[in-house]
C-alpha cells in the first residue's frame, strides 16, 4: 500500500472514531420538561450530585450505568413534583453525604468545614505572638560591663564576636576578617 493511501486510510479511521465517539456521547436531551425553568433546575441538581462509580464526575457528566439510572430516577422524581430537598434526601438516605459535592454542615463535618480556619487561626496567633516577643525583647546593645565580661569569657585572641562598635573601639589589624 502506498503511503498516500495509508495516510488516507488513517485519516478515514480517525474521522470514523471521531464521528462514533460523538454519537456515543450522551446528551441530556432525553429529559424533557414542559417548563424550561424546571429543566434548568434539573440540570443544576444533577450537576451537584456525585456519581459514586466515577467519583470525580457529577451525575450530569458521568456515563456510568449507575449514573444513567440515577439520572432517570431524579428525573422521575422531578416529574412527580418532588422538591429539590426531597430528591437530595432520597439520595443521601441511600448513598450518604458522599453524593453531595457540597457537604452539609453538621457535627461529623465540623472538622472539614472549620479545620482550615482553626489552622489559620493558630498560625496567626503564633505569628503575632512571635512578632510581639521580638519587639518586646531587650535591646541587643551590650553595656560596657557586659562587653568586658564577654571578652573575658571568649578571650581576645580568637574573639569572633563583632559588632560595629567593637570594630571602632578596638584595633583589629591582627585578626582575620571573615570573607
Amino acid at each position: 500500500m502506498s503511503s498516500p493511501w495509508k495516510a488516507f486510510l488513517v485519516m478515514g479511521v480517525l474521522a470514523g472514531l471521531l464521528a462514533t465517539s460523538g454519537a456515543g456521547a450522551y446528551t441530556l436531551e432525553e429529559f424533557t420538561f414542559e417548563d424550561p425553568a424546571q429543566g434548568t433546575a434539573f440540570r443544576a441538581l444533577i450537576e451537584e450530585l456525585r456519581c459514586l462509580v466515577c467519583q470525580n464526575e457529577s451525575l450530569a457528566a458521568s456515563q456510568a450505568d449507575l449514573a444513567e439510572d440515577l439520572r432517570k430516577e431524579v428525573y422521575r422524581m422531578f416529574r412527580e413534583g418532588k422538591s429539590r430537598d426531597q430528591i437530595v434526601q432520597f439520595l443521601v438516605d441511600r448513598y450518604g453525604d458522599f453524593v453531595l459535592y457540597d457537604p452539609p454542615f453538621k457535627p461529623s463535618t465540623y472538622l472539614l468545614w472549620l479545620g482550615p480556619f482553626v489552622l489559620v487561626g493558630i498560625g496567626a496567633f503564633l505569628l503575632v505572638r512571635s512578632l510581639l516577643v521580638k519587639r518586646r525583647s531587650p535591646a541587643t546593645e551590650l553595656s560596657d560591663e557586659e562587653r568586658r565580661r564577654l571578652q573575658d569569657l571568649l578571650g581576645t585572641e580568637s574573639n569572633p564576636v563583632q559588632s560595629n562598635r567593637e570594630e571602632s573601639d578596638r584595633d583589629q589589624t591582627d585578626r582575620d576578617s571573615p570573607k
Partner: protein
Amino acid sequence: MSKYLKALVPLVLFLGLVALLFYGLGTDPRKVPSPLVGKPAPEFSLPALLDPDRTVSSADLDGKVTLLNVWFSSCVSCRAEHRELMRIAREGGVQIVGLNWKDDKEAAVEMLRQFGNPYSLIAVDEAGRVGIDWGVYGAPETFVVDPEGIIRYKQIGPIDQGVWEQTLRPLVEKIKEEGRA
C-alpha cells in the same frame, strides 16, 4: 517549656502529618460507607431467578442472619468471590440471598450452572431499582442483615477467605449470640 522541647515541636507536627498521610494510603476512597448500616433493610419484592412463580421479598430475611449478596454474571469480582460463597454455603449457619443486579437472566442462570449456586434465594433486580434503594453502586456488595431485619454491615468488594474469617463470620456469630441472649 524548655528550649529543647520547643525545638521538637516541628518534628512532632511533621510526624503527625506523616502518620495521617500514611493512614490515608491504606484507605480506599472507592469504599463509601453506607448510611444504611444500623437501619432497617429497605423493603423489596422481586421475582425469583430460578423459580418463576415465586417472589423474593424482605419477609424472606426475617428471623435469620442473612448475607444479601449483590452480583451479576459478567462481573469479574463476583466470579472471584463465588468460590468463597460456595464454601460459606456448605459451611452453613447463614442464609445467603442473592440480588441479581441489572443482569441478563440467562447469563445469570448459566453462571450458576457452571459454578454452582450458593444462594438459597435469588431476587432479580433487572432495572436496578431495588439496588438504588439499598445504595448499591457496584458489585459485588454484601449486606449482613440480622434476624430483626437491621442491616449490620456492608461489605464493599469481593468476599475472600480473609474477609469472611476476620470480619463477616465474627459478626454473624455475634448476631447469633445476641439472638440467644
